[in-house]
């Protein structure tokens, strides 16, 4: 057996910092010390925000117009707003952690403060072990092995929730705003995991929500002349035919075949989706003298790029049972037939959107199509693509909700909107992957198994890794309890006496049964926190040398207050 002190430490010898003309190279132990300083600074700023009784962090103004400090109570935003530390060695550690936290915030909407304290705990204990002679690479391997053990234990604890009240409780653990959480609980109970939810700044002090039936796309009628001018500037078409295309309509003559077709078939309403349409073609459509015989509304193909346009065409075709005419495939309307048209019970358009209710496509094909898009969603790891696919599934499922978030001031509204968006992301995760005991209990519950693995381990690096993890998983719950003003050791001792299924409710200030009080966190958040914090801390421990590039000399900033310059 090789004990840590018997192994020759790698790159553990004191080496001076080397300066060159262009770069500064930093070796151990300055590397770890510097990174630790940066991590400690960033975590120190985020730590007070962990738990349902967070304290607030004031961040100095960032623009010239608003000198008021920004008050923030979530770790992701704090990390995002700290963009550089003056100490460049510390900056490396801080920015490494900042990147982890920001990515986590983007992916799951919550858990950044937990990830920060967990990262710090693993890194700090890892540094102690490595500087005492441990092997960083082997420690990384065993930390990742321990992570798998943690994830398995978390998976075994997952429970699935449903219903407005349960979802509202989950939302509240993220936004700490009961009325907002209640509204989000109702919305997600209705629209589901993939449902389309838009969160917008409100028009009053209150929270308001609106549900829209059917699917809609962000493309309005190409001319207001096609809309009813009764004050709403909206046209509703009943039993409408849908012409689906991305063709560029340059001349009115291109529209003759589809218009002749609908007239021949005694169709009274036509929603025309086209890639581009010229003024002369719009003028031709507006010259219709008999709208009672045929109403035509033209809109442009939805989507910001070719792929999104192709998705929209495919979705419209499946929903309405029509065929998509595609410019790139050389399609034209010349030989259009009745079966090429889609149909819907109702279609509508206004200045900004168009929508379809009751598309007459084959329902089985639609369900199969949604299953295919869902499979693509599950396969992809790209956050942008996942968001786009989720929106696409939401559209196809029909129905959407809009939440207007009100407040007393614009700043309060903006912050509430941010919290609502984070809670919405967490709710989607909770609906998809279930929930885990909240308040740090889930991670803390992994501790006995990790301690057992540490006791059973014969390899010193493995034993160290499990000990590090066993101590680290208790740090989030300790921090939450301490932030609420309680003694963490006493409280955890009490919690141990109650056994599994109990947690400490810092709001009620007592130990409570988790299932009855609904103190849960989305499982995807807790698992992502554990994964992000432990893998990145384990990787950070393998950093031995830092190289700083010389900073270019900055030109003096213009004096914006000088009237002469302005």
């Amino acid at each position: 057996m090789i004990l840590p002190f018997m192994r020759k430490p790698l790159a553990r010898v004191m080496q001076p910092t080397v300066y060159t003309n262009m770069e500064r190279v930093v070796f151990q132990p300055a590397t770890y010390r510097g990174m630790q300083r940066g991590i400690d600074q960033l975590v120190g700023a985020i730590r007070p925000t962990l738990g349902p009784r967070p304290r607030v962090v004031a961040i100095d103004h960032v623009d010239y117009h608003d000198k008021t400090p920004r008050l923030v109570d979530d770790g992701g935003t704090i990390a995002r707003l700290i963009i550089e530390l003056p100490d460049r060695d510390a900056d490396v550690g801080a920015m490494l952690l900042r990147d982890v936290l920001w990515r986590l915030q983007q992916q799951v909407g919550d858990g950044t403060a937990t990830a920060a304290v967990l990262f710090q705990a693993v890194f700090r204990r890892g540094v102690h072990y490595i500087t005492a002679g441990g092997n960083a690479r082997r420690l990384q391997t065993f930390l990742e092995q321990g992570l798998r053990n943690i994830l398995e234990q978390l998976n075994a604890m997952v429970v699935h929730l449903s219903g407005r009240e349960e979802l509202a409780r989950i939302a509240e653990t993220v936004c700490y705003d009961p009325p907002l959480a209640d509204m989000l609980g109702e919305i997600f109970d209705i629209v589901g995991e993939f449902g389309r939810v838009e969160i917008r700044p409100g028009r009053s002090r209150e929270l308001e929500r609106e549900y829209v039936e059917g699917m809609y796309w962000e493309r309005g009628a190409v001319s207001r002349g096609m809309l009813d001018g009764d004050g709403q500037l909206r046209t509703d078409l009943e039993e409408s035919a849908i012409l689906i295309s991305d063709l560029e309509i340059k001349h009115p003559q291109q529209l003759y075949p589809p218009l002749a077709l609908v007239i021949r078939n005694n169709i009274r309403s036509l929603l025309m989706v086209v890639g581009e349409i010229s003024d002369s073609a719009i003028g031709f459509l507006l010259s219709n003298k008999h709208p009672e015989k045929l109403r035509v509304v033209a809109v442009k193909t939805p989507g910001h790029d070719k792929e999104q346009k192709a998705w929209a065409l495919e979705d419209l075709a499946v929903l309405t049972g029509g065929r998509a005419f595609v410019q790139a495939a050389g399609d034209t309307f010349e030989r259009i037939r009745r079966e090429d048209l889609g149909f819907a019970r109702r279609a509508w358009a206004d200045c900004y959107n168009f929508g379809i209710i009751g598309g007459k496509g084959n329902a089985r094909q639609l369900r199969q199509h949604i299953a295919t898009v869902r499979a693509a969603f599950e396969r992809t790891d790209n956050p942008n693509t996942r968001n786009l696919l989720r929106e696409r599934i939401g559209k196809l499922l029909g129905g959407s909700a809009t939440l207007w978030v009100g407040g007393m001031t614009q700043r309060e509204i903006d912050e509430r909107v941010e919290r609502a968006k984070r809670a919405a992301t967490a709710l989607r995760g909770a609906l998809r992957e279930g929930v885990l005991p909240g308040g740090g209990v889930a991670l803390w519950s992994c501790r006995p198994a990790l301690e057992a693995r540490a006791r059973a381990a014969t390899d010193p690096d493995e034993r160290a890794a499990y000990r590090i993890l066993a101590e680290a998983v208790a740090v989030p719950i300790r921090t939450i309890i301490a932030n609420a003003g309680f003694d963490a050791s006493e409280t955890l001792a009490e919690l141990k006496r109650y056994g599994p299924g109990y947690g400490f409710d810092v709001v009620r200030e007592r130990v409570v049964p988790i299932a009855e009080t609904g103190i849960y966190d989305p499982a995807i958040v807790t698992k992502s926190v554990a994964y992000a914090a432990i893998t990145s801390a384990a990787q950070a421990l393998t950093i031995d040398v830092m190289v700083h590039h010389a900073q270019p000399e900055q030109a003096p900033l213009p004096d914006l207050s000088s009237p002469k310059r302005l």
Partner: protein
Amino acid sequence: MTDEIPITEIVHALAASPDFARDGVCFAARTSGLYRSDDGGHTWQPAHNPSGTEKLLPTSAVVLSPHFAVDRTVFAGVPGAVMYSEDAGQTWHMVALASPPPFVSTLAISPHYAEDGCVFAGTVEDGVFRSGDRGAHWAAWNFGLLDLNVLSLVVSPDYARDQTLFVGTDSGIFRSTTGGRAWREVDASPEGARSTDFAPVLSLAISPQYATDGTLFAGSELRGLYRSNDRGRTWQRMGEDVLAGPINGIVLDPQYPMRPRILVLLHATLVLSADNGVTWNEWRPDLPDDQALTCVAAPLGLEDGAPLLVGTTGGEVLVVREKLFRE
């Protein structure tokens, strides 16, 4: 068995008073209108228009309040609208559903109607409409209902607590646990098949003890009868040898599962089981070859000798009093 009704039209739905043993009141929704009987289904009179001065409206669905003896409330589906009467069919109110006019295929009423006033209308092409004010106003609530061709609809007996409904559509089953406001797909496919392979679901029946046993039956157009004992999560096919063909109706004994009697309406046959679907026996009424059975009601449950009302494609309502069950 019937009189006054021309035999050229279809009986779409039948509904009987909860107090049928005493009052003998039942309604038949027919292509030519809604009819009412006060003598247990032996004679029928137009119900929409007792005075006979106006043309009758084709009626596709009918349902009675569970508290009919007190509130005298009847709902009937007519083209583009739901009609309701609060005096057992003497006077009617018509409420349009939406434009373009939907075709009401089925109606269902909350078991706690006296308290919540909830009624549901399933339509062909327009999904489910819900009224929370005893039929005065209706709104479409179809979030997640991917197939708007609704063929059957049942409400949980524990609706006040679980807010659960199921609809059978042209492409399978959907469940709502939000009182009909949002819907989720139910994978009612046979083992190994995709949910989208599932056939149209013509009929649904829910156990009176659904809150505890979670049992639900689904009758498909092409693939027979299915049962789920876990609120629709998994399904087992029943009576494969006997139940071949479209299942137009399913009736469970009011004391199910204590008395596990099931009645299934096949194309032209009543198929019955007294042992929760382990064994089945058939009863075929004497019908012309071109006629089939469309709907069934068991106002006094599935007691041997208790009347069964059976609608046909010929427009007749058969009153069956045979001893059909063999223990």
